[in-house]
């Protein structure tokens, strides 16, 4: 049951990602990327990491995808089929993929069976974030606040 679900999700995710890389109209590519995002969220659900899956949808579909789509909309005057196949991109992608595969296959951790972990509940994530990882959390909060203020300063109207 779960392996069948894995294959279906994998096909959908890869098809979405491939379409995002190959389609000639940028908006279509961005929308196909959203399909890939949903596929990755489905993987998290399959692995029992419900919270991470929900946050994946929330952040990537709700925010990142909207941001991408808006960027395309606001910067391109005419986005009609001016996107051709980019060989250098393909070469770089294949090189990165090869590097990752060799790194993954080379790790000794793959041979060891993973120990069973208890269910990743929202409560546990909250507790760990508020105790062990409270400093990283605060630092990220600071960085994001600074980014928010920076964005505000950038778009503020100039005084006349």
């Amino acid at each position: 049951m779960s392996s069948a679900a894995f294959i279906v999700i994998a096909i959908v995710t890869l098809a979405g990602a491939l379409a995002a890389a190959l389609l000639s109209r940028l908006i279509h590519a961005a929308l196909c990327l959203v399909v890939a995002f949903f596929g990755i969220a489905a993987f998290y659900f399959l692995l029992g990491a419900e919270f991470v899956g929900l946050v994946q949808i929330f952040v990537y579909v709700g925010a990142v995808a909207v941001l991408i789509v808006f960027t395309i909309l606001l910067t391109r005057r005419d986005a009609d089929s001016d996107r051709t196949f980019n060989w250098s991109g393909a070469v770089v992608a294949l090189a990165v993929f090869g590097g990752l595969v060799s790194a993954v296959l080379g790790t000794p951790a793959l041979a060891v069976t993973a120990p069973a972990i208890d269910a990743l509940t929202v409560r546990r994530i909250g507790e760990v974030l508020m105790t062990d990882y409270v400093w990283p959390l605060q630092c990220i909060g600071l960085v994001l606040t600074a980014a928010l203020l920076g964005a505000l300063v950038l778009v503020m109207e100039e005084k006349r």
Partner: protein
Amino acid sequence: MSESVDQIFVLAKQWILSWLAGAPEWVTQIASSLISISAMLVVFLTLFAGMSLFERKILARIQNRLGPNRVGIFGLLQPAADGIKMLIKEDIVPARADKVVHFLAPIMVAVPTILALGVIPYGRNMTLFSIDGGILFFFAVGSATELAVFMAGWGSNNKFSMLGAMRAIAQMVSYELPLILSVLPVVMIVGSLSPDAIVAAQSGYSLGGVIPHWFVTTPWGAASFLLFFIAGLVESNRTPFDVPEGESEIVAGHMTEYSGFKYATFFLAEYFGMFAISGLAVTLFLGGWHAPFAFLWFIPSFAWFFLKLGALLFVFIWIRGTLPRMRVDHVMNFAWKFMLPMAFTCIIAAAVWHFHTRNVAGWLWSAGIVVVVYLVLSRLLETRRRFAPRVYRFAEE
């Protein structure tokens, strides 16, 4: 007796499932899901039909006219007539439209709202899709709506559609923050993201069963409820925040190029979104399916839920009949300068209430915090307002 009335739908489902007693487990699982989903769709489609009629009736009453009264008694068959009209209308797709995106947009708008309805507890043991992070699920699927609105606006290849979609996304993104922040105090106090746990935390009564332990009876809860309701009005694009589809300016916003059943789907998504937001408000602040007084326990839980839902929907209609449309920049200013600070205040007030061991002193302290911040904030925003001749910034340059 009343116990079985309360559980009548749960028992009915178990009875239907008992026919499949010998079947393998996955068949039972799929059958169980299908029963739940179809029950939910039937209930909410009926509610949708009823709401579309009663909205017109109530608006007519507010505007001193009669409203639909020709089809059936009191116009009760009007929704059926409307539905048939929508179905047999010609489906027009603009020649320069992006056909696939144009076709997918109405579906993408409707799916998240239907999914969001799944996590709300409609009564005792009546949550269709009970997961640990139910509240997060609600907002995660809700955030997919923005993309769907964009697809509608962009796929139509029409300037009004695009303008409407831009306005809709701008206002939805801005108000998502206060919407979620106003939920945060409740999540913080309950210590869980599951709607069932939140409803369970609001059981019990004070003063001999007349004051329910709903979160709306606490100062921070009342303030968050108002913020949540306002943000919910914006998220469902209802008056006075219906700038995205402002008829007098941009035809119908992102729905301009849609006709027939696709338009009906947008309409349905808007109403389902309204049901979902109201249902979540009932769950979070109005005690879910709990009775308002202890001696009314014999009325079934789902009846209370739908009574509260109906009351909130009536307020939606009431506001639509009463308030004029806000200007876009006012909507945005309101979100960032008032809603956001107030939402943060609610979080602090809730914490104070909690650490005062939830007693009367804590109640008064948190009420004090909310009121003081409200007064200071409204005073500041008032003095900042400058009255000056209107400036046409983009028209004259």
